[in-house]
């Protein structure tokens, strides 16, 4: 029965329809739109073909360049810190200690809740002028900082919110750590390798497939950050946290420039595509798959 191509095709038909209608078609349509001066309030027929004018406009758009800069800054700060922190905590949790389950739950919880508007709102209060952090600073005898009001610190609040959500990367690391055979460490102990050396020579290489997965997911997610800048900082002050997804949204639904917004979204797409393509291409140089070894542990 499982050789029946017709029945098999029937099962995947919903995906094919959905992919064509809700992914492939909008994907191509947004590129076509990016070559026009379409406006949200007009009929599409009224739009003019303008070639690459929207892409040319970016070269002279200071707001776009600022947005692109802060987007890269945000991603380059958030993703490595989050992965490093997630790995560190996963390594600590991986030792056989009592009550690990409790800590794992506590650390994982924020990654589930942190994407909500409710938490973003709480974050606004935590970083507000008379909010929790400045109150704590006061208790410790420091002066308050105008976190959300200063261009240098506003982005910090968003970065910290996403770092707070390190739990999903952590549980993936933890599962990867559990899959590393114990006997490798025992052998290394006999050879007299220090714990530090064991981490670099055994743990990290065997963890690279999981690191690769986490890296891709976090990069893709970070480049699409919207709730943080929209709710916590409104992109400000002085566009210091005006991440590209927020600019794409505002160009389309606040300024009604569908053409320009579509062009911006294609820039974002190309950036993400380049990052994932480089990651996939480079994995043969640094990602170590267990299948290459003989002692395959065969499923979990």
């Amino acid at each position, binding site marked *: 029965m499982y050789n029946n191509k017709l029945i098999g095709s029937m099962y995947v038909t919903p995906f094919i329809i959905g*992919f064509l209608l809700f992914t492939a078609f909008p994907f191509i349509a947004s590129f076509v739109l990016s070559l026009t001066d379409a406006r949200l309030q007009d009929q599409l027929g009224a739009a003019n073909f303008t070639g690459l004018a929207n892409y040319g406009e970016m070269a002279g758009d200071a707001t776009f360049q600022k947005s692109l800069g802060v987007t890269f800054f945000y991603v380059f700060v958030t993703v490595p810190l989050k992965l490093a922190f997630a790995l560190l905590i996963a390594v600590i949790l991986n030792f056989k200690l009592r009550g690990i389950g409790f800590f794992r739950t506590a650390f994982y919880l924020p990654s589930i809740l942190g994407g909500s508007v409710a938490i973003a709102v709480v974050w606004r*209060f935590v970083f507000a002028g008379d909010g929790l952090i400045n109150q704590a600073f006061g208790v410790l005898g420091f002066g308050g900082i105008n976190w959300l009001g200063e261009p240098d610190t506003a982005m910090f609040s968003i970065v910290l919110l996403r770092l707070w959500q390190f739990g999903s990367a952590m549980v*993936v690391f933890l599962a990867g750590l559990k899959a590393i055979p114990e006997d490798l460490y025992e052998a290394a102990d006999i050879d007299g390798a220090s714990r530090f050396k064991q981490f670099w020579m055994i743990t990290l290489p065997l963890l690279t497939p999981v690191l690769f997965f986490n890296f891709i997911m976090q990069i893709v997610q970070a480049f699409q950050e919207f709730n943080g800048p929209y709710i916590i900082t409104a992109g400000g002050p002085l566009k210091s946290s005006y991440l590209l997804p927020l600019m794409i949204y505002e160009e389309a639904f606040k300024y009604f420039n569908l053409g320009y917004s579509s062009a911006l979204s294609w820039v974002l797409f190309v950036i993400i595509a380049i990052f994932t393509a480089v990651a996939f291409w480079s994995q043969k140089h640094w990602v170590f798959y267990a299948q290459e070894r003989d002692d395959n542990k065969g499923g979990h």
Partner: protein
Amino acid sequence: MASTTSHAPDAGWRKHLPVLNALLRYGILIIIGFLMLYPLFWMIGGSFKNNHEIFSSIGFIPKEPTLDGVINGWKTSTEYTFATYLINTFKIVIPKVIVTVISSVIVAYGFARFAIPGRKYLFALLMATVLLPKSVLLIPQYLMFREFGWLDTYLPLYIPQAFAVEGFFVFMIIQFMRSLPLEMEEAAVMDGCNSFQVLTLIVAPVILPAIIAVALFQFMWSMNDFLQPLIYLSSVEKYPVALALKMSIDVTEATSWNEILAMSTIAIAPSLILFFAAQKYFVDGITSGAVKG
């Protein structure tokens, strides 16, 4: 750490090294855990404080507990109570979870079990949807749903999910199905079951943990979803909690923090309860896609 000294006094504390080590680990875990959960405690505690106390003390336990924040937060600053927004949220989330589960299971079954022409390429497309930024689809989808006359309805928020558009979920179920032995299904075919009966009677019950994981993740993500409702819904009476909260901070943020904190607490309560009731499925679900033996 790699000290070369081996004098007698050293041996004394070296014996205690494992204990110190464990203490250090617990210390780190407890401090980080406390700092991480503190904003949540502060949010919940703040719901029962008066506004003066929120600004004047960093403790999370209310000194003079009051229900003002909860009562006013529930009333909201709009013409509807918070109950309306909660019900609206479920009107979106529940259909979305149901159609996501059904379509993902059906498509995953096709991918995991059948010889489909071009399966390799279809599967690559499926995985590509996971990596594709949603904002590149946003405007054409909006225009399409405008043509359909679906603006200011809930349809754009869950109809696409009926077509297995979330590759991550399909992938999760495929991985789970592939780890199952084929014998039961083969026996059912021998007994005269058709493939749909095999799926619903044999496969579905066995992959229940994966189905629950998909349902839970989709529930959480949909509860948190903000951008889609923001674009598609324009009448306040149809707002889900996420939009109502955003609207409330625009109106009352400067004055009534306890109201907003209470609303935030109520807003995440369903997710919080579900998380503690079913945390095992979350961890199993998220790791099944990433770690393959």
